[in-house]
């Protein structure tokens, strides 16, 4: 493991045997490549919040529901989707979002404008948030489970309504879990390969697809290495920056 991370980082020098920042310059100075990088970050910025908003209620319900049947069936659904191949998960959106897909049929029935194009950043963002939800649910589950339900009972018995209990007790206590989940989701989304490949239709590339093409079609190992290293750095900066931000703000604002 160490060996290859080392290898990746010294990749640009491996072929030419001279260390040169040229590949990084190429990536950073070519607008087309920068677009790909920006698109990857943008799709991550869209899909991670969507995934979090959708997975929170699922996790919360699994942790708090009294019904064992409901909890277990939800877990079966989430865990099954967790293990189903991302190829299948991404593919399922083609008949849904395609030109004659279900969504457009429903939209035209309602007299609304069509979903413009299957192969687009929007589709990729939808596909990635769908892919992230099971991960987020399972990770959030741990932090929600750790919250003592007695704290909520206490708030309720002291006269707080259910909204107030949630906003002032449950939500702040789950913030560290949300922060952790966000960081995991960012890493997963930045590195997504299969979903943009299938839902981008080969035209809309994310950085992973760019790396793959450079490696296998153009055999430009140094450029691919430089792009990989950029991807790693951006992911690292995003997650490290966010975790610092969370650490500082969680302490200040919520005391957790």
């Amino acid at each position: 493991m160490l060996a290859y991370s080392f290898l990746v980082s010294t990749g640009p020098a491996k072929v030419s045997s001279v260390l040169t920042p040229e590949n990084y310059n190429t990536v950073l100075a070519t607008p087309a490549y920068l677009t790909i990088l920006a698109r990857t970050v943008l799709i991550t910025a869209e899909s991670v919040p969507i995934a979090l908003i959708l997975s929170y209620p699922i996790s919360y319900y699994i942790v708090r529901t009294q019904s064992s049947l409901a909890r277990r069936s939800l877990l079966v659904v989430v865990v099954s989707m967790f293990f189903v191949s991302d190829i299948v998960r991404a593919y399922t959106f083609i008949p849904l979002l395609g030109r004659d897909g279900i969504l457009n049929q429903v939209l035209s029935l309602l007299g609304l404008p069509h979903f413009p194009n299957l192969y687009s950043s929007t589709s990729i963002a939808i596909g990635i948030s769908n892919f992230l939800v099971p991960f987020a649910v399972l990770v959030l589950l741990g932090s929600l489970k750790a919250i003592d339900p007695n704290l909520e009972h206490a708030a309720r018995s002291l006269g707080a309504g259910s909204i107030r209990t949630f906003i002032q007790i449950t939500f702040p206590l789950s913030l560290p879990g949300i922060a952790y989940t966000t960081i995991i989701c960012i890493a997963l989304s930045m590195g997504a390969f299969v979903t943009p490949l299938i839902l981008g239709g080969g035209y809309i590339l994310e950085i992973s697809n760019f790396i793959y093409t450079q490696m296998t079609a153009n055999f430009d190992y140094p450029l691919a290495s430089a792009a990989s290293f950029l991807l790693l750095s951006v992911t690292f900066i995003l997650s490290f920056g966010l975790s610092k931000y969370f650490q500082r703000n969680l302490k200040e604002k919520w005391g957790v």
Partner: protein
Amino acid sequence: MLDKTLRICSLLFLFFAVAFILAPVLLVIYIAFLPQIGVLDPSPGFTLEWFTKFLSDPVFASAVTVTVELAIIVGAVSISISLLTGYVLTHFEFRGRGLIDSILIAPSAVPGVVKGMGLLLLFSLIGLQNSFDQLILGQVMISLPFGIISIVPSYISVDKSLERAARTLGATELQTFTGVVLPLIKPGILACAIFVISISVTDAATTVFLANAQTTPLAILLLSWTSVTPGNEFAAISTLLVAATVVVVLAVEKFVGLEKLVGGLYQ
């Protein structure tokens, strides 16, 4: 009153969230049984034609063979290494343990494509040419961190005094391991096996770098089929894969309990 409206709203939202992850899959399962490609105006009736079509395809059969062989070998190797590593990590204190911990955790945050590229460069550097060997080594490397992460919690949960008791009563370290520890960490081994094998079967981002035309695992075949096979046929393949996954998950739920399985993820 307000409370009731709120409850209904949150249940609706929950329903929407579950529908978001479930509906596309259900739609594809439905399409798999339709006789023609369009969903728009399906002619009445259902068919199994798409299932027989890919099941009788020799390319599909050979991809399944590669995937099964890989899963067995990668599973055996990764599970054994995870067992040993987990034991060492939980039983010995030594210098550099923190370093090993972070080396084990870090790769799970590295994008699959970057791992695949690194492995490809590494293999060309050391002159490992056989694609199947590359796949085995590569998949062991990418699945190990997850295997170890899922097995360590069950090692930690084993009461150390049980092991001490066995040792005091004259058992060797190996006897203690096989007689006391191993039966207690069975759920952890199962979790480890499921994670490792599912990575080996479904990973595409790293595997795509190591496969070639002669050695194509199922995931890579599917990746190339998404654009070329008729929609219904791909839907049929997806249906089969989803069904297989659900069967395994239900079996685990019945015999072990899912909470135990996924517990390792967030500890």
